[in-house]
């Protein structure tokens, strides 16, 4: 096994809540790891700790053996990047300017983005089909176009390891699949290791090599999609009853309702005639 990113016993506390409470994970070079879990399970916080956006209260993150906290910020940014869930929607710069900033970690302080760097920018724009939008301002784009522009910036960084926090949230189904195919291409053709937080479980099953489920700040299950996606898993982790079908080796799930434990309605407030 050729591990690239290794996290040990990560923990993070906001106030008096343990958002992440001891998660260890290993990402194998070239794999696509899908991270799933209910809202508030701590998966985004975990991803942000991996990307060094949050300093963990406990635990360590190592990239190819080096502790990321001791690494130079620019050399880390050449090897690993993260696309956040939400970015400033009103940015007053053009798509191309945004994508050019993706070259920042590869440029010395006196260097300008030109020559081969500009060619990488062109490639990222073309690959994400944002080349026709490149002179528009980000604030004038739709949510989906903007998301593709930000992905183009991450791609222009040419990282070995790409962390993505729900990248398909704002996209319609065709653009979701297009983005997943694009990432599959990066993953398979260029060997980019991908860690992706994703809500659509069927897409996770279809595209990811491995699934890790997070609940209450801990790992609830992990393995290949076929190993993980069983009816008991959906009940325990998401609290839904589901049937799992097989679609040519890929598990497909169909929820049928909220699991029994969650259906108690509690007491209705009195005085409301409803």
């Amino acid at each position, binding site marked *: 096994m050729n591990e690239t990113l290794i996290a040990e016993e990560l923990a993070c506390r906001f106030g008096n809540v343990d958002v992440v409470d001891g998660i260890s994970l290993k990402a194998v070079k070239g794999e696509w790891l899908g991270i799933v879990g209910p809202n508030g399970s701590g998966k985004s916080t975990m991803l942000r700790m991996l990307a060094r956006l949050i300093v963990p209260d406990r635990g360590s993150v190592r990239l190819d053996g080096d502790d990321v906290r001791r690494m130079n910020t620019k050399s880390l940014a050449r090897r690993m990047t993260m696309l956040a869930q939400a970015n400033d929607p009103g940015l007053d710069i053009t798509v191309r300017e*945004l994508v050019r900033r993706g070259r920042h*970690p590869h440029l010395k302080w006196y260097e300008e983005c030109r020559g081969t760097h500009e060619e990488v920018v062109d490639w990222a724009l073309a690959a994400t089909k944002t080349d026709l939008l490149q002179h528009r301002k980000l604030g004038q784009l739709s949510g989906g176009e903007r998301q593709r522009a930000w992905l183009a910036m991450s791609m222009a960084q040419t990282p070995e390891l790409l962390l993505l926090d729900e990248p398909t949230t704002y996209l319609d189904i065709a653009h979701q699949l297009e983005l997943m195919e694009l990432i599959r291409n990066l993953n398979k053709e260029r060997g980019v290791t991908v860690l992706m937080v994703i809500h659509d479980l069927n897409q996770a099953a279809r595209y990811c090599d491995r699934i890790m489920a997070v609940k209450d700040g801990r790992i609830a299950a992990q393995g290949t999609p076929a190993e993980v996606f069983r009816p008991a898993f959906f009940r325990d982790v998401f609290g839904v009853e589901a049937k799992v079908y097989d679609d040519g080796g890929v598990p497909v799930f169909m929820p049928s309702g909220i699991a029994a434990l969650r259906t108690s309605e509690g007491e209705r407030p009195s005085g409301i005639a409803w």
Partner: protein
Amino acid sequence: MSAVVSNTPASARRAQPAQALKHGSIVGISLILLTLAILYGLMSGAISTPARDVWTALTQSGESEARQIVWNLRLPRVLTGLLAGMCLALSGAFLQGVFRNPLADPGIIGVSSGGGLAAVFIMILFPEQIGYLPISAFLGALAAAALVYALAWKGGASPIRLILAGVAVNALLGAAMSSLMILNSEKVQAVLPWMSGSLNGRSWPHFDALLPYAVIGVVASIFLVKQANLLVLGDDAAKVLGGKVELSRLVIIMLAALLAGAAISIVGMVGFVGLVVPHVVRMVAGNDYRILLPVSGIGGGALVIAADTAARSWFDPIEFPVGILLALIGAPFFLYLLRKGVQK
């Protein structure tokens, strides 16, 4: 990487020369405006001096009246205005990026209130030490900015906490300044021109005092362009791109305080330049600091020179404080721009 790019459409690459041309022409136009403003500043006043006489006065030493007026009175005043306007505009351009807020200006980090309190303190309580006013105002401005930053720090200084800390410090220092003035109302008259920002009587010593800070500011700005361009994207994006977010934010804020503090210590509380100039430049030239900073600097200088010249020649024999004229003319113009929404 070269194998990657073979399928790039050629049309995509044509963008670069077009952008360079656009940037070049914007810098060119701003330099022309600056030249016109300087010329206006040297020609106008209680006595109008034709361009030919200005040229003679600048190039030939002698004891002529034109030489006296142009070389000893107007030129230093114009150049002091140039530096002050440049410093204020650069400061505002940086702060709007750091705070990711188009309404940020040097006032937001306490520079005006800190410098103002120190200046009022000297003018009212120690009028015989008036020579120490610039240095006191400068130190007051820096101290207020440092205080704002320290109050906002909590494992990092986010823009929103900086703004809240700035509002609180401004309120406190503003109250102290008002108290001083109310308790010493008979001496307030002396304070007023400084409070509204004035270039009246500024000459070579003032220019010499401001020059080193302006040079330091411009040189430091060059090194901070890339960091400013990253900060604009937001903290997370700047970090994953390899930016040192907290460090560069601190350095940029302190540089902005230095620039604005130096300017107001010499010309008083000239507002508006730091807010409006970068804003207008951004509408025309975009939000790339490689172009935003130089054009804001040039534009700020041109605006202050033109406004000061108007302020001293339109109302002759009264010398109007340039700060008031800037606000009177600039505010409606700014509102017009906002409503018109100059955008491509």
